[in-house]
């Protein structure tokens, strides 16, 4: 196997007494879409910042392209494209100018930048906005422009920190579509997200982070197979009936998760579980049967709801 693009061993980040990233290990191979999944404060962004060399590591070992971020930060950044969590486009510049200045920061010749801008505006579906200011663009357009900006230097690794947070469903799907295309073209992607469906759709492999630690690792399919039984029965109750629910449902095997308004029952056979409920005269307000998802993996691993 060729050397991983990013390798972390015992990677740790501390801010004063706060342990943001706690001795994590991971390898990211060329050409894969790698996800960091976890709630806010899990340490995803801190990990991203160390990889992008804008936050020094506290302990452990980290290499990016086989280089040391502390010594070769500039050489690493030359080959990176970074999409930050919060847009930081230059509002005083036009769409095309935002791309242009990043091309210059990467020391690209002007002619190359111009050619690349045409391609990228098309990719981001912003060609007709080339000369308009950034301010009036919609959230989805700004996000796509930020992604285009990250691609100006034809990076070997693209890092996207919560790329679709705050976007409406339509904008999200358009963005996913663009990211698929990038993937198909062979780009290596690192994506952080707290959306399950995003991780399931985009990531070949992912790690689940919680409180600075990696609590699980694998492909979405593997994780679901390993940590969540095949099916999920969701029992919805009115609030007043949620009290004492754990005693009433304690007999269920395979584990349950009790949330504010519903109980999640993991099972290999949803039909059997439903029959059992009827036999025991348990009648929730609503019953929903579905395939288990990464969200269930997360609940199982950390015992709490992901989007908090």
């Amino acid at each position, binding site marked *: 196997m060729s050397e991983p693009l990013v390798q972390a061993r015992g990677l740790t980040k501390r801010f004063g007494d706060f342990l943001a990233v706690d001795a994590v290990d991971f390898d990211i191979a060329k050409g894969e879409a790698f996800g960091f999944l976890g709630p806010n404060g899990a340490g995803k962004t801190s990990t991203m910042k160390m990889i992008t060399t804008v936050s020094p590591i506290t302990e452990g070992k980290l290499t990016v392209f086989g280089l040391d971020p502390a010594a070769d930060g500039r050489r690493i950044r030359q080959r990176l494209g970074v999409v930050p969590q919060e847009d*930081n486009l230059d509002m005083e510049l036009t769409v095309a100018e935002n791309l242009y200045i990043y091309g210059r920061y990467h020391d690209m010749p002007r002619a190359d930048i111009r050619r690349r801008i045409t391609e990228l505006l098309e990719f981001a579906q912003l060609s007709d906005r080339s000369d308009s200011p950034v301010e009036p663009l919609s959230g989805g357009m700004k996000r796509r422009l930020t992604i285009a900006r990250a691609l100006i230097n034809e990076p070997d690794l693209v890092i996207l920190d919560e790329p679709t947070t705050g976007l409406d469903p339509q904008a999200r799907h358009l963005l996913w579509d663009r990211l698929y295309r990038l993937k198909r073209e062979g780009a290596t992607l690192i994506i952080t997200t707290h959306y399950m469906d995003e991780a399931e759709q985009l990531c070949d492999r992912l790690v689940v982070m919680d409180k600075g630690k990696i609590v699980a690792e694998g492909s979405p399919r593997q994780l679901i197979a390993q940590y969540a039984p095949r099916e999920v029965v969701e029992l919805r109750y009115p609030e007043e009936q949620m009290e004492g629910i754990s005693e009433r449902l304690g007999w269920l095997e395979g584990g349950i998760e009790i949330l504010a308004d519903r109980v999640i029952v993991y099972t290999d056979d949803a039909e059997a579980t439903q029959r059992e409920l009827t036999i025991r005269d348990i009648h929730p307000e609503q019953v929903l049967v579905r395939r288990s998802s990464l969200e269930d993996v997360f609940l199982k691993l950390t015992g709490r709801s992901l989007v908090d």
Partner: protein
Amino acid sequence: MTILARSWRWVESEAIGYRRVWRGTVISSFVNPVLFLSAMGLGLGTLVDSTSDQLSIPYLAFVATGLLAATAMQTSAGEGAFPVMAGIKWRKGFHGAITTPLGPADIVIGMMMWGAIRLSFVLLVFALVSVFLGALELGPALLAVPPAILTGLAFQGTVTAYTVTRENEISLSTLFRFGIIPLFLFSGTFFPISQLPQPLQIVAYFTPLFHGVELVRKIALPGADSSIVTSLPVWAHVAYLTVMTVVGIALAARWLDRRLRP
């Protein structure tokens, strides 16, 4: 890329944005000196010259040279304050730039270079307005610009260093209220510091704008006597302002690094 090449990339991006707003800034570059020189120089100056012979030159020439240095201070302090806070907190442009080959030091130096370019223009306009209003001869007016630029850079560097350690714009208005405005008033801009009580004169010797004002006058008004300037040598002013510039840039780069790359 060398550090200068990288910093120059920053200047390019500033210049691209500036193309859209330059008209407004050009107008204020003209309006400011016209207002100040006509009020202070022509208005107040007539009164001063007619009631006192303490100054060996017309008050208009005295105040024009002082205001040139003070304008440099104000312009550059502004450049070290608001765009820097914007880059860190309001628009976060710095956070994006440091994910490219640019680093915090490149940004600081780039901003200083851009500041120097903008300031040169502002001061050149000021000098020409002074000539037009009869405050200074053309030669001395132009000679006064480089020392005023040095004065400005000394302020831009240190104010940048201050700003990168601050959280909000209240700290910036505090700086202007308790730092920049008192300096503007008591550094010999409007009256020789020999008019101040002895203890305050000693304080003035240690303040930066005093050195900027003195340097501008010693260069632009050769032969100025002790009613206009102190007996401190030119090199002392240059050394003070140069050290302040270098220390300011070094601290700004270091502290911005700490701020952006925690």
